[in-house]
């Protein structure tokens, strides 16, 4: 099936918010901009508005204009909508300004001086804070979590070898093609005026909850509509709530529509990034390469507010021990508060960080016991019936050893390894190597998260016989609408042309949960199937569901008999049987299921420049049933490219906690010329509780490439790098002099 919005995106016909003409609901629209903090921590002494401007012609919003609590509704509500007299990170929003002339507005905002009495900021999460840097509790710790299985200390006493390592990963910017964009206007409704927000976002109901909280309105007086969204990768999970509030506050004060479009440099500097991490491993290994004990410590930089860090930490530690069986595991972890931009959701959500450390550690274990990197993984990969670090019994039928073997075959691993070693003996300055990573990714929300979400999907039977899927899950470039159409058509026994996907609009669609966590096709897809079943049973006789043309005809007939009424099938989330998680002790089924993957990277290092080029990449994975092969392959390839950037070039340069290189000229994402051929191969083990038999695919591709590439660099050059991004400048220092 072709991607539904493919043609309109390819041809440029798709209108993102910045493309929308200022007509209709946007008639008379003002442009909104944000006044930001010039310091990473301190008291706001004064905001001076430039004397060259007549401010009576501008709409200005300060914290006192917020009708309700000055809080962005999320896990802890500690992040203000606008800094209330005190700033905690560089570029934090302090005030808002709107005007109809966009260039005049830019100049006016540049004229505003925010004067700060500075306090000492925390800018390095790895160093314990001084007393004058404490800003939360007694130690700045946002969250501590622990996983404990068996007895690591006893196991260390009996180890053949103990391998220790310390691994670091950097922040990462999402670089969605469409910058953040939001609009807001007022409408009349039965209960009074309604604040309508329409913009680029992943999670309409997160935005709705944030508006309800800070504007003190119920859901009949706030309405959130998703606009076509040009990429998210987690970057539009929580932050659009803040921009929506900014836009709504300006629209409320101006009583005119307002549009806020971030410039790229503002978007890069001010919005959340991937959490930087420091992970320490201490592993007890048997002579034959078996893992006897894994002691892992994970520290994440949470940034200036709690935002999503506790859940990122949670997913991070559950993946920290990798797809391996080990009887004794102790994982200790914390997310710490700093005065950096709040770190937030980013594809993989903590797992790529901990998996990077785990996989680099596996290579070093292989080295310590004299095993080939593939071999040490083969020895330790989980088998069905064995348990993960949370003592979840692995099941589902995926043969991880077969997956590894077929990746080794598909990539010509042995041949490339031999040839690279021969090549390296003769070439004056090029070195080639091959590396491997084996990974897992839990699909859907962690632990009992899906139960708490209690997601709902409706399907509407329309008078023309078509079925409309009503869900808050968003299309943001990943193909949700296409996958949902395929799943709905299959479930209803109808053609794709008989399925309509409703626009996520909180006045029309129920809360199917956020569009995150590789959950959309698996969890929401399944709800669509069940909602269609519900509709089909309502229209059938004696509980016998209708399908195909009979269903379509019955829908039309129902409308003839019930003119003007709504026909709906509904479904609410029910967990798969026997999935139980103790979220106090982190014991049990951390995820309903996992996707599994193997990455093999072949690289070439130029010793003259220390530049690393990925020559060839193989991504082998089991994601359950593949719903749309082209889209699934695209997800994997895109993830590999994004991970290559994270691994090799996407380096943050900070000054006083602010991003210095906040342009696409100086923040280096890969170009098509930096991307190798990527072989994507799926093994399909259908997952009965996922939509169409699917598991999640969105995040898994981000997990394996970075460690596989560094493993290959180690093979090529002997440089045992433990931190990413491994820029040429950093690799140079690990290579011998006079290369």
């Amino acid at each position, binding site marked *: 099936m072709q991607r539904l919005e493919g043609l309109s995106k390819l041809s440029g016909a798709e209108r993102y918010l910045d493309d929308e003409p200022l007509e209709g609901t946007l008639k008379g629209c003002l442009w909104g901009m944000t006044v930001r903090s010039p310091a990473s921590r301190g008291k706001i002494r004064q905001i001076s508005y430039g004397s060259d401007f007549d401010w009576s012609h501008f709409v200005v919003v300060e914290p006192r204009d917020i009708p309700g609590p000055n809080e962005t509704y999320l896990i802890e509500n500690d992040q203000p909508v606008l800094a209330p007299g005190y700033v905690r990170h560089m570029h934090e929003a302090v005030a808002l300004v709107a005007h109809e002339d966009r*260039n005049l507005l*830019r*100049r006016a905002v*540049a004229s505003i001086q925010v004067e700060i009495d500075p306090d000492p900021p925390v800018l390095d999460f790895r160093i314990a804070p001084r007393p004058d840097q404490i800003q939360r509790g007694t130690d700045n710790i946002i969250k501590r979590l622990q996983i404990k299985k068996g007895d690591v200390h006893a196991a260390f006493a009996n180890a053949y070898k103990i391998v220790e390592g310390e691994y670091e990963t950097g922040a990462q910017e999402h670089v969605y093609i469409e910058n953040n964009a939001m609009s807001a206007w007022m409408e009349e409704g039965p209960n009074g005026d309604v604040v309508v927000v329409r913009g680029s976002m992943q999670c309409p109901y997160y935005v709705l909850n944030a508006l309800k909280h800070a504007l003190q309105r119920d859901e009949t007086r706030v309405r959130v509509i998703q606009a076509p969204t040009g990429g998210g990768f987690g970057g539009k999970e929580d932050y659009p709530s803040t921009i929506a509030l900014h836009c709504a506050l300006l629209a409320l004060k101006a009583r005119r529509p307002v549009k806020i479009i971030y*410039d790229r*440099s503002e978007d890069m500097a001010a919005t959340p990034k991937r959490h930087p991490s420091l992970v320490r491993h201490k592993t007890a290994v048997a002579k034959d390469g078996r893992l006897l004990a894994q002691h892992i410590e994970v520290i994440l930089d949470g940034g200036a507010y709690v935002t999503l860090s506790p859940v990122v930490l949670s997913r991070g530690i559950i993946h920290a021990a990798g797809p391996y069986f080990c009887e004794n595991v102790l994982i200790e972890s914390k997310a710490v508060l700093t005065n950096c931009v709040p770190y937030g959701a980013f594809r993989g959500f903590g797992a790529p960080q901990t998996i990077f450390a785990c996989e680099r550690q596996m290579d070093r274990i292989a080295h310590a016991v004299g095993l080939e990197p593939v071999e040490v993984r083969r020895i330790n990969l989980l088998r069905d019936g064995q348990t993960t670090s949370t003592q979840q019994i692995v099941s589902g039928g995926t043969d991880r050893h077969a997956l590894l073997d077929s990746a080794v075959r598909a990539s010509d691993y042995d041949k490339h390894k031999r040839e690279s070693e021969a090549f390296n003996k003769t070439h*004056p*300055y090029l070195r080639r190597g091959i590396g491997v990573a084996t990974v897992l990714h839990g699909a859907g929300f962690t632990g009992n998260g899906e139960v708490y979400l209690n997601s709902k999907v409706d399907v509407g039977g329309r008078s023309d016989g078509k079925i409309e899927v009503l869900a808050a899950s968003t299309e943001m470039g990943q193909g949700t609408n296409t996958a949902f159409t395929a799943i709905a058509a299959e479930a209803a026994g109808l053609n794709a042309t008989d399925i309509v996907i409703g626009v996520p609009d909180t006045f029309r669609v129920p809360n199917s949960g956020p569009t995150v966590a590789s959950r959309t096709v698996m969890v929401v897809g399944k709800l669509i199937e069940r909602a269609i079943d519900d509709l089909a049973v309502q229209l059938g006789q004696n509980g016998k569901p209708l399908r195909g043309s009979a269903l379509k005809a019955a829908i039309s007939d129902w409308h003839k008999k019930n003119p003007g009424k709504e026909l709906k099938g509904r479904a609410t989330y029910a967990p798969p049987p026997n999935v139980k998680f103790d979220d106090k002790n982190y014991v049990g089924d951390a995820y309903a299921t996992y996707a599994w993957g193997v990455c093999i990277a072949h690289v070439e290092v130029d*010793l*003259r*420049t*220390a*530049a690393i*080029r990925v020559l060839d990449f193989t991504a082998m994975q089991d994601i359950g049933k593949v719903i749309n092969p082209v889209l699934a392959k695209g997800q994997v390839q895109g993830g590999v490219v994004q991970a290559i950037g994270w691994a090799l*070039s996407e380096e943050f*340069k900070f000054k006083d906690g602010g991003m*210095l*290189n906040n*342009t696409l*000229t*100086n923040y*280096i994402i*890969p*170009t*098509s*010329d*930096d991307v190798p051929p990527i072989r994507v191969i799926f093994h399909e083990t259908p997952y009965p509780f996922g939509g169409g038999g699917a598991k999640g695919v969105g995040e898994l591709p981000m997990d394996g490439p970075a460690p596989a590439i560094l493993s290959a660099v180690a093979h090529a050059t002997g440089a045992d790098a433990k931190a990413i991004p491994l*820029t*040429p*400048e950093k690799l*140079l220092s690990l290579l011998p*002099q*006079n*290369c």
Partner: protein
Amino acid sequence: MNVFMPNTLAEACDLCAKQPDLIPLAGATDLLVHWPLRQSEHDKSYLDLSKLRELRKITWAADSLTLGALTTYWDVLQDSRAKSEFPLLCESARQVGAIQIQSRGTWAGNIANGSPAADGVPVLMAYDASVTLTSKSGARSVPLHEYYTGYRKSVRRTDELISTITMPLRKYDFSVFHKVGARRAQAITKIGLAVTREASAAAPWRVVANSVAATVKRCPAIEQLLQSASPIRKPDDFSSAIAADVTPIDDIRSTADYRRTVLARLLYHSLNGVCPSVT
């Protein structure tokens, strides 16, 4: 914003003479970067040279090649002789931005903009290019390696425009160009190197480096070292000559140490087996 659009070079020179603050524009590819954010640039006055068709000529003479000031990278890539006579021009042109920039950006604009990271300038300098500066009061020719006087500073007076770039036609028996960027395309140069060796010349070597000093820099100490026949057995044997010629810094794109080290390695590996003293 004021934009003047003269029809002839003479008209353009008149305008320059009258208004010393005019900023000449050829491809304007540097101007438009972050345009919405650079509000102060909106208030300046510009001299758009795009109508001066006379400056968009590539002229092959018996002993030289002349590029009009509006010659784009793409124009040179399309020129069949350029690839055989001046191969480094084509190599560097292909490394500038992407095709969109290559087809708008000009060699003269690259010189005038004065960035030490300019991709087009090192190869021109390695081919001993000279620049013709034209004003109301006449024209003068300046060797490109004497054009810059400091960071984004040059000998060009405000009433002068670059009208042409000329390179002598010579027989080279070796040439090499390296651009080291942070990625394989669409990158700003972290270290650049252009080297030529003129066949049977008394002083055959031209070595030019970029992004390692305040300007694109010809490297006389390295040239002399190559000519001196003193043995070079490893990259670090270039270190003292490099230290004499360039002054790299730590900045947002790289480090001084990386720049020095990589320059030495590029020189060593490029010249190993080419220059008899490098083994």
